[in-house]
């Protein structure tokens, strides 16, 4: 990795953090409607994973999707504009927080029904296999999704057909307010992949470089024809499940313990220790990120509302 690569990862993580902090404010001001699920605390997961992909690799995730969008190369402007439901949003204001995508950047959403995107991910990988494309599909989902039938149908199919897919469970310890121990027969999620004869790994999701390292290895193996593999990433969301979560299911002590392992703080410290960059340089990166987000918010607020045509023109391709 070059110095610029490290700084780029750092920049992405700070953009996600600042963007979501601003999103929380915009939500409280009533400018964002519906549900808003923040990725704060989990930035190292998608940043590390997606930094290991090639442009031809497809990315698909669940509804906690703003960070994934940024990592896939969507601009902060089109992400914030989508949150505000504007015509300039990545889904033209039709999808909102949970349904962001940009297929030109191989970002296939942004899916809000728990686990339902896993069979779709298998289909994306099938498309590449069928057309002899040497591409990998990266499918991310939460721990909660591993208890629903779709998960099992999709993993089974992917193994039976030897699909080029990397299944990644972001274990943030809770499916809404229900802890993994209370919802899943095994608390080490990766064990579920054993049931499908699938190689599986576990990694610390608070360390972006560790995530990137294992992702690089798995992308490479899958690209070489290994078939599907499974990665469990241990992480934690610092905020509630969505806005307005009373958080009765966890103690503030627990939250504070995890917050001491802030993925951005860890990465900052590591970059200084590795002598990649000094505090001043990293702080400058953070300032740039903050400025980018401020511009994105201004852009989104000034953007036009979508017209009703966008609705009627997109129910079908052929009317």
């Amino acid at each position, binding site marked *: 990795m070059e110095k610029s690569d490290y700084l780029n990862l750092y920049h992405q993580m700070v953009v996600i953090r600042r963007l979501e902090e601003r999103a929380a404010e915009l939500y409280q001001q009533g400018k964002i409607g519906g549900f808003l699920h923040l990725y704060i605390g989990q930035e190292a997961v998608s940043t590390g994973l997606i930094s290991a992909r090639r442009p031809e690799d497809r990315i698909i995730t669940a509804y906690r999707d703003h960070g994934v969008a940024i990592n896939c190369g969507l601009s902060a402007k089109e992400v914030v504009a989508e949150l505000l439901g504007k015509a300039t*949003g*990545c*889904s*033209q*204001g*039709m*999808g909102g927080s949970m*349904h962001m*995508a*940009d*297929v*030109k950047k191989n970002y*296939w*959403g*942004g*899916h809000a*029904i728990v686990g*339902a*995107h*896993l*069979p*779709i*991910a*298998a*289909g*994306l*990988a*099938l*498309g*590449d296999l*069928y*057309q002899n494309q040497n591409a990998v599909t990266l499918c991310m989902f939460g721990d909660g999704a591993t208890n629903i*039938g*779709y998960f099992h*149908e*999709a993993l*089974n*199919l992917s193994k*039976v*057909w030897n699909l080029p897919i990397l299944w990644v469970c972001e274990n943030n310890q809770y499916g809404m307010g229900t802890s993994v121990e209370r919802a899943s027969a095994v608390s080490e999620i990766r064990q579920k992949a054993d049931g499908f004869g699938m190689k599986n790994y576990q990694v610390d999701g608070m360390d972006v470089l560790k995530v990137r390292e294992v992702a690089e290895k798995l992308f490479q193996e899958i690209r070489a024809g290994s078939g599907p593999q499974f990665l469990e990433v241990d992480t934690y969301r610092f905020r509630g499940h969505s806005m307005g979560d009373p958080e009765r299911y966890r103690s503030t002590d627990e939250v504070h313990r995890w917050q001491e392992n802030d993925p951005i703080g860890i990465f900052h410290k590591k970059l200084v220790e590795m002598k990649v960059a000094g505090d001043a340089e990293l702080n400058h990166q953070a300032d740039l990120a903050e400025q980018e987000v401020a511009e994105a918010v201004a852009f989104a607020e000034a953007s036009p509302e979508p017209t009703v045509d*966008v*609705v009627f*023109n*997109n*129910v*079908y*391709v*052929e009317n």
Partner: protein
Amino acid sequence: MARITMREAISQALWEEMERDPKVFIMGEEVGLWGGTYAVTKGFYDHFGADRVRDTPIAEAAIIGGAIGAALTGLRPVAELMTINFAFSAFDHIVNQAAKMHMMFGGQMVLPLVIRAVGGGGRQLGATHSQTPDAIFAHFPGLKVVAPGTPADAKGLLKAAIRSQDPILFIEHATLYQTRGEVPEGDYIVPIGKSTVARPGKDVTIVTYSKMLEISLKAAETLAKEGIEAEVVDLRSLRPLDMEPVIESFKKTNRAVVVEEGWKSFGVGSEIAARIYEEAFDYVDAPVKRVAQTEVPLPYNHTLEQMMLPKVEDIISAVKEVL
């Protein structure tokens, strides 16, 4: 023109489309080695190979979800559900994913997807395997629902569906597979979303589709012997619903009977009747009658099952009530 069965017509459409376009492929339970539960894909596996005629596990969400994903990559999957009753196991993927994705992501996702599903009662399969839930699926904007009643329409509509850019549920009635009819050879396309007059008449309009077209035409023949000329309109697709031939016919006859195999409440007949009242109220000479399945889960017993399904006599008496 060859006189072939509905099964052969559907098989022909699939075969020709797969020969024409390498992006078209089939996936589903027992579509390959077995040759299709209803033998529609017999011979396909040997000719097109395992990559293009893909046997799946018994996992409907994976079949439909997988087909959605493959369609998003530009392929044209034809996913087969062994029976439409199994569509409930893939309900989310049909109505909540396939029907939503184009709109919800601002038009950037395109799903050229066909779901073939076999439906209908009358075969002593018991309550869980005998349903006609077409209206449920027709409720969802974003999905198209096609249900042919003749072999020619089956071929032409299926070819149109495979070439379409939208997700389409293509419902085949199991007891129509042996029905014979004239079917044009080669590239025969019937545009989706066009109702048609299957039999001209002047006294009453019978609106129907799929299997019920067959018994409606039989009823019309019997009525003709009594001097009553029924005009039969075949909807062919429920969404989009082409009301033009229905309204045109009704303005001429001022009387209508709607015949469907599914249950009456919240069904196709309810929708058609409401549309007639909304669009042609001034022409109404009698209340629109609905002929439909008795509102019970279908029994296994042959006599009782037949008793619950719409019959020729039910249509005849409904027509006489509106005259």
